[in-house]
């Protein structure tokens, strides 16, 4: 009896002629996510992958549950295609399911079989019936319920027989790398990691850009952003993080421009620098964590002014989400606890008391012209620090 994991992938089915391309990308992503387990073997079979020669270990399942493109998976056992072996495996699976539930009383179950090896001597109905009967005899007190069973024992007969009872939801989405590359403006707050995650989930590779304002922000706030990238990279693979020194730009703006435009001007500079890094990294779009109306710099008018700074498309996946929805997602993907660590980020310093909420593009451009933007940006870009981060 051998432990295996059965992986199911979803939308790739729809991809017609591109299907091999998506499948290859998914396979690469699985290999990458599980690279520390050297002995595993990945076998492809009709709309699913089997990972063989693997331990029954929750750490492996955690990793699998973060691979974009997998809709569900099942830890299973692989046995020879004979009734004795299948019965024994089914017994063990039922015992495990009972242990998971903590109670043996009044347990209801059913057996569901699939037979892709049509040469197997029983059809799937008959196989289910016989195994069900065996389990009933073995565990007195349990009952069959074909409509709403507490436990379902699945049997798949292929070259081998696979038996399992767990059906774990995967994260879904598309394999990373099948949809190009984007640069994520990552602040260290709650929103931007979620935004990056959402876009990456659709198969996009990420590079991250963070603005650092030492001494107004500390090494701890930088460490925090590195940690956020590490969490994200558990889903989307290695991330190259660019840390941009932003202090001088903020100080210049603070000295030369009107208070009420500061945040907007700052954001425009961030977009411009983000665009330069995106081009350098071969990324075609920017991602931000902006959500409509959340703060003054995220009103419709403000977003237009921010967009005006760059020619690259800007993806804002959180645009229609409420803060509580974003927080729920951050908790789900595991970035929330890190995001709420109380270190200053560069957006919370030099905040104007009364920021403009309905800025005019022309006026903002005029204000921006008061500083030597080109020189400031060149200096910042020349001094970026690039950090390779792997989950």
């Amino acid at each position: 009896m051998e432990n295996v994991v059965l992986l199911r992938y979803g939308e790739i089915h729809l991809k017609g002629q591109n299907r091999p391309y998506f499948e290859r990308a998914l396979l690469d992503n699985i290999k990458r996510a599980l690279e520390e387990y050297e002995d595993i073997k990945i076998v492809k079979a009709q709309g699913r992958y089997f990972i063989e020669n693997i331990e029954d270990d929750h750490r492996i399942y955690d990793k699998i549950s973060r691979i974009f493109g997998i809709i569900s998976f099942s830890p299973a056992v692989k046995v020879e295609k004979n009734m004795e072996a299948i019965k024994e495996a089914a017994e063990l699976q039922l015992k495990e399911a009972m242990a998971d539930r903590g109670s043996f009383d009044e347990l209801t179950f059913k057996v569901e079989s699939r037979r892709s090896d049509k040469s197997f001597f029983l059809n799937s109905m008959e196989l289910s019936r016989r195994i069900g009967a065996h389990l009933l005899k073995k565990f007195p007190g349990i009952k069959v319920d074909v409509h709403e069973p507490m436990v379902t024992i699945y049997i798949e007969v292929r070259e081998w027989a696979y038996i399992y009872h767990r059906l774990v939801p995967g994260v879904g989405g598309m394999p990373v790398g099948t949809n190009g590359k984007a640069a994520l403006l990552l602040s260290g707050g709650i929103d931007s990691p979620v935004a990056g995650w959402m876009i990456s989930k659709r198969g996009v590779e990420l590079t991250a850009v963070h603005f650092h304002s030492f001494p107004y922000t500390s090494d701890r706030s930088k460490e925090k952003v590195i940690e956020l990238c590490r969490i994200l990279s558990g889903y989307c693979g290695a991330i190259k993080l660019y840390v941009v020194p932003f202090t001088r730009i903020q100080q210049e703006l603070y000295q030369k421009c009107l208070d009420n435009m500061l945040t907007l001007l700052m954001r425009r500079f961030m977009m411009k620098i983000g665009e330069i890094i995106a081009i350098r990294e071969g990324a075609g779009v920017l991602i931000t964590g902006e959500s409509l109306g959340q703060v003054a710099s995220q009103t419709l008018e403000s977003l237009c002014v921010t967009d005006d700074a760059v020619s690259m498309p800007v993806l804002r996946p959180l645009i229609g989400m409420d803060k509580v929805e974003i927080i729920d997602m951050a908790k789900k993907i595991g970035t929330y606890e890190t995001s709420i660590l109380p270190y200053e980020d560069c957006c919370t310093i030099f905040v104007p008391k009364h920021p403009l909420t309905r800025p005019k593009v022309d006026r903002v451009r005029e204000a921006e012209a008061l500083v030597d933007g080109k020189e400031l940006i060149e200096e910042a870009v020349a001094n970026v620090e690039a950090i390779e981060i792997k989950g």
Partner: protein
Amino acid sequence: MKNTIYLDNAATTPVHPDVAKAVMDCMVNDFGNPSSLHRLGLNAEKRVKEAREQIAWALGVSTDSIFFTSGGTEANNLAIIGTAMARRREGKHCITTQIEHPSVLNTFKYLEKEGWEVTYLPVDKRGMLDPDDVVKAVRSDTVLISIMHVNNEIGSIQPVEDIAKLVKEKGLSPLFHVDAIQSFEKLDLKPRRWGIDLLTVSGHKIHAPKGIGALYMRKGVKIHPVHWGGGQEGGIRSGTENVPGIVGFGEAVRWIEQDIDKKYLYMYKGILVAGLKERIPEMVINGPEPELGAPHILNVSFPGIRGEVMLHALEDKGVYVSTGSACSSRRKSIGPVFQAIGAKKEAARGAIRISFSHMNTSDEMYRTIDIFERCFKELKGYIRR
């Protein structure tokens, strides 16, 4: 590390090389359990004994009144909870101050939840207590007075000697505990002569490793232990002795007592205060006048510049300091010490704590003055409008 000037010694100190050597030697060679019957056990026991004698000698107390703990926090907890448990039939009232370290303050908060009454005495704007206030607060059911010697954030010194005398003169019965973590090996400290019943000291504030502290307990004082085990440290603090830590603590005390002139700390402070006042007239000193406060702690603010920002700017130039106290730097609201001295929010937000040790030099003070001036000039253009 060559250009590093470490001025956060009230948070922790670097382990002195001689101390590190002694600790290493102990870990590798005298690694036995002092309770073991064989020779290795005996050797370890001897080293613990030597360290105990060293610390007892420095405090002018008898060897059997020193009890090792895992550090200052544990010793403070032990003193307070141990006294409360031992005397709970005599009364349920304690006295302390509003500016104690969290290891004292939060222990009393716990006692309050358990039905005790605690009086938190106020301090003046320099952070100093009036000894008469202590005596006035004593009631017939008061069992413990706990007052820190030197405040860790602003360096104010409490007249613990006078308080002890006053309490004894009036014939009052509560035990008197002093948290001397910040004053040990910096100020004169003679608990037995002064009439202090319990006193806390810690290793890592005086160049010993972290994880070692001690409680002095006057002979005849009875407190309850707060955890139970093999009966080490006279049953007051069970658990296998942290022999390397104890040896390091003893060695640090030996080094300071033998090689160090404690007056140097006041000199460093004097140099720094004079230099900073001259170069940065805007600077505000928080807490007591420098000559009235502890020799190794100076707390200052630079109006308009947040403490955290100044700290990082200084760090970039190799000078390491603290905002307020390291334990509370992540708190957003103004801390209890600054509240107690009636500091303005502006001063509290800008507070920088500079703290020296016996391992600093005068040259470092002069360089520090230059660096402060540079940082101040760089940041002052961007003060909040």
